[in-house]
Structures are given as structure tokens and as C-alpha cells.
């Protein structure tokens, strides 16, 4: 069948459709590679937050007398820990976004932001896949679901904005400053304790309360948590966090566009 060689079809799809097509292909590849090479597959992505939640639950409810957060504490923990895993995983993978795929980037001409966005997407899918675990614990411990659950989509949109922004900022810079890879890991570890995950912003002393809102994760986590703990919803944090997220995305896009030329030469 040789007829297909003679005709040269026009571009069938719009650039946006092609973008999604490539993004989706690479994301699927990521997930498939991860799950085809490990026996436990899906369970790894929930095992990690579960073990961490288990540790914090033990330390703060069995060892120490807990006076932060809300009850049931395990649900309180998981409702911020799971999104944290998404943010943490995506940003730390972004430090190697270009270096790991150098060969592929040198041979295909897809829009370069895909190399960052696919990491945000694949970690996001793992996050969504882990939500049933949260639901399970909420049911077992009798946490009450309320109208705040409707804010989940808003929280996800904000987190995508923030994570993509930070990723677009970090990915190209690491190509030039390799030290940044370790610095990012360190900053992430700091950020874990600086974000309201094992505690809530309301547990902070008064003046810190104000500044905590400038960590965009505070607002985002408060949205997730409002599904079970309506008192956690803090519109001031959400407002500041949204502005910060959008600012990060704008900065990320700017840095990415300015450094793209140099990145392509370097890898």
C-alpha cells in the first residue's frame, strides 16, 4: 500500500490539540513506565503518604499530647499531606525535567513547556488517584463531609497554577546552576514544616498568622481541608495565595521563555 506516501496531508489539528496530545502521551508514558516496572504499582503512590501520615499520627497523638490541628487528626493530616506529595514530587522532578529527557528534547519539536507540565500532570493524576484513601480514612474515623468539598476543584486549579509556575522557574535554571538541584531539595524540606500540614495556620502565634498567608500553600491547603473542617477555611490566605500562585506562574513563564534558547544549546 503505497498510496499514503504520495499524498501529503495538511496539518489535521490545531496547535492546542497537538499540545494536549503530546502532553497526554508523555504523561501516560511516565505513569506506564512507573507501573510496568514495579510489582506494587499504584500502591507505591499511596504508600508513601500513608507511611508519613502514620508516623506523624503516632508522634503527635501517641507520643506527644497533641494540641494542634483537628480531630480526627489522621484525616486532618492526609488532607494536606496528599496535595503536598503532589507539589513536592512535581517540583523535585522538575529539577531534572530537561536533564533526564535531553535525548528526546534534542530530537522532537514539541513546545518545551510540556517537559514541565507533564510532571505536574502525572503527579496530579497520582494525587487524584490517592483521594480514595482520604475518603476511606474519613469514613472509618467518622469525619463529616460538608459543603467545603465543593472548593476542591478551586484548590486543584490553584495548585496546578502554583506548581507549574515553580516548575517552569526551576527547570531551566537547574540546567545552568546544577547546585540548584540540591538547594531545591533543601528548600522543599524546609517548606514542608513551614506549611500548614502537620498543624494549621490557626495554631501559629498571632503575627506569624499574617505572614503564613504569603506561603501560597497555606491558602491551597485550607481549601482542601475545608471539605472536612469548615473552620480551616481562611479566605485571607486563599486570596493572598491565589495572587502568589498567579505571580509564580507569570514569573515562571517569563523566565522559561527568556532562558529557553540557552537551555536548548546546553543540553
Amino acid at each position: 500500500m503505497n498510496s499514503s506516501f504520495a499524498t501529503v496531508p495538511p496539518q489535521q489539528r490545531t496547535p492546542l490539540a497537538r499540545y494536549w496530545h503530546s502532553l497526554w502521551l508523555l504523561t501516560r508514558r511516565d505513569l506506564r513506565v512507573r507501573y510496568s516496572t514495579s510489582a506494587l504499582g499504584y500502591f507505591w503512590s499511596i504508600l508513601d503518604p500513608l507511611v508519613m501520615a502514620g508516623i506523624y499520627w503516632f508522634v503527635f497523638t501517641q507520643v506527644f499530647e497533641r494540641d494542634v490541628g483537628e480531630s480526627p487528626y489522621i484525616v486532618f493530616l492526609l488532607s494536606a499531606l496528599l496535595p503536598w506529595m503532589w507539589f513536592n514530587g512535581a517540583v523535585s522532578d522538575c529539577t531534572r525535567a530537561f536533564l533526564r529527557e535531553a535525548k528526546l528534547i534534542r530530537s522532537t519539536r514539541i513546545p518545551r513547556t510540556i517537559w514541565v507540565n507533564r510532571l505536574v500532570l502525572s503527579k496530579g493524576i497520582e494525587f487524584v488517584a490517592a483521594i480514595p484513601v482520604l475518603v476511606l480514612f474519613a469514613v472509618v474515623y467518622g469525619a463529616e463531609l460538608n459543603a467545603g468539598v465543593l472548593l476542591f476543584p478551586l484548590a486543584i486549579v490553584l495548585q496546578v497554577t502554583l506548581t507549574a509556575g515553580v516548575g517552569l522557574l526551576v527547570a531551566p535554571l537547574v540546567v545552568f546552576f546544577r547546585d540548584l538541584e540540591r538547594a531545591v531539595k533543601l528548600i522543599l524540606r524546609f517548606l514542608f514544616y513551614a506549611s500548614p500540614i502537620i498543624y494549621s495556620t490557626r495554631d501559629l502565634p498571632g503575627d506569624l498568622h499574617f505572614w503564613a498567608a504569603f506561603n501560597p500553600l497555606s491558602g491551597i491547603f485550607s481549601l482542601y481541608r475545608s471539605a472536612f473542617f469548615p473552620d480551616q477555611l481562611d479566605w485571607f490566605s486563599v486570596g493572598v495565595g491565589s495572587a502568589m500562585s498567579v505571580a509564580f506562574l507569570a514569573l515562571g513563564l517569563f523566565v522559561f521563555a527568556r532562558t529557553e534558547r540557552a537551555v536548548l544549546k546546553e543540553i
Partner: protein
Amino acid sequence: MAAPVSTVPSTLPVISLTDVGIRFRRNRRGRRNFKDLFAARNRRSRPGEFWALQNVTFSVQRGEAIGVVGRNGQGKSTLLKLVTGVVLPDAGVVKVTEGVAPLIEITGGFVDDLTVRDNVYLTAGLHGMTRKQIDARFDEIIDFAEIADFVDTPYKHLSSGMKVRIAFAVISRLEEPIILVDEVLAVGDKAFREKCYRRIEELLAGGRTLFIVSHNERDLRRFCKRGLYLDKGDLVLDGPIEDVLARYNDEYGVKRT
């Protein structure tokens, strides 16, 4: 029957480079600061950098077959990468109006842990083919690469020859009107190489535009009518392939007895 590609009249070039230049750093691990990272593109050459290509201007019509000639390190591969769009010029404009199938680092998109089948769908998909298009060509691709028995084998277990064969088979089946070839024909056994040649001739007969980098004069004469001669980052000669090869041999070639 060949359908018209688009409404663009065929006299418009499909590839056109205007005053294109690109520079690289001489020592890749040199000092770098935030300031020159964000500096807008400019024509000044900074210390420690050199122009890999400079003031390159030419255009290509649909259906032309062009060979790029030059010694190692004179910017041939960089030129192909610029046309593919995987590096961006520091000066000038690269305009490519149609899709490109790059036979450059062809095995780059293949993932070791996935099967050959998954890899074919992934790579062809990344180059813009839809699932249906790939379904329709899948058997052709596997036949061409002669690895029907290994379709569900992880890519990493293939021999290096098989890897190149499957990669060539995929990229050369892309529905793109422009094909870029960078030295890949040097690999594979003789029989497969001959098959690749025939495939390229088929594509040319089908009206594709071909851009080829090679050190093999026989290949160049076989496919190309027009040649580009690059030397020290400049486009020295743009003319019939015979003239280009003659000039190249004059300057660098072994004297024929």
C-alpha cells in the same frame, strides 16, 4: 492521486532562512551569571563564545532534495537542528511552513522499559500522528524493521541494529512533508541500508522535501540535485550538487589520481 497540500502556491519556499546565526560557548562549564542568561538576543559575540553559523540565507522549494556538505564541526548538524526547530537561532529568522520528520538522534524518543509496540505509538504520537494513523501503519512499520517477533519485547532487549531499524521505520513513516536526514544511513547492515535508500527515494518520488547531511558522495549524488557547502560557519556555496562536491574536494578532498 495526489491531493493538493494547501492553498499556498507551490512557488513559496517551504524552508527559508534569513541571515541566520547561532553561537555556542566554547567551554561549556564556563562562568555564567544571571545577567547574561537573561540578556536579550544580540549580534555581539561575547568572549568565550563562537558563531557556529553566521549569516546563513537560503530557501528551499517543495520537493527539492538538498545535500549539506562540509567538514566535521562546520555547522552541518546545527543547521539541521535549526530547521527542525530543536535549537533556536541567536540572529535571523528560520521559517519552516510545513511539518518536519527529523531523522536526527532517531532513537532518542525510545524508552528502554516499554515494549516495541508502546514505543512505536509513543514516538509516532510525539511527532504528531494520531492513534488511528499509527494503527493503519503499524504492520508496515514492523515489517520494514523486520522485527515482527519482538513486538512485545522491552526495547532494551533489542540489539543495537534492531533499535536503529525500528526507529528509522517509525520516523520515515511520518506523514510530514519535509524529511531531515543526519548521517543515520551510516548504520545498519548493507541490506537494510539499501532498504532505507529505497524508502527515501520513494518519499522523494511522493513529493517530499529532503534535507540530508552526509559524508558519502555516492549518497549525495544519488538523492540530491542541489548542495549547500558550509565552511567555518558560513554558507560558502549554494548550487548544483556536482559543483558543491567539486569545490569541497578541491579544498579538502583527497586528490584523485
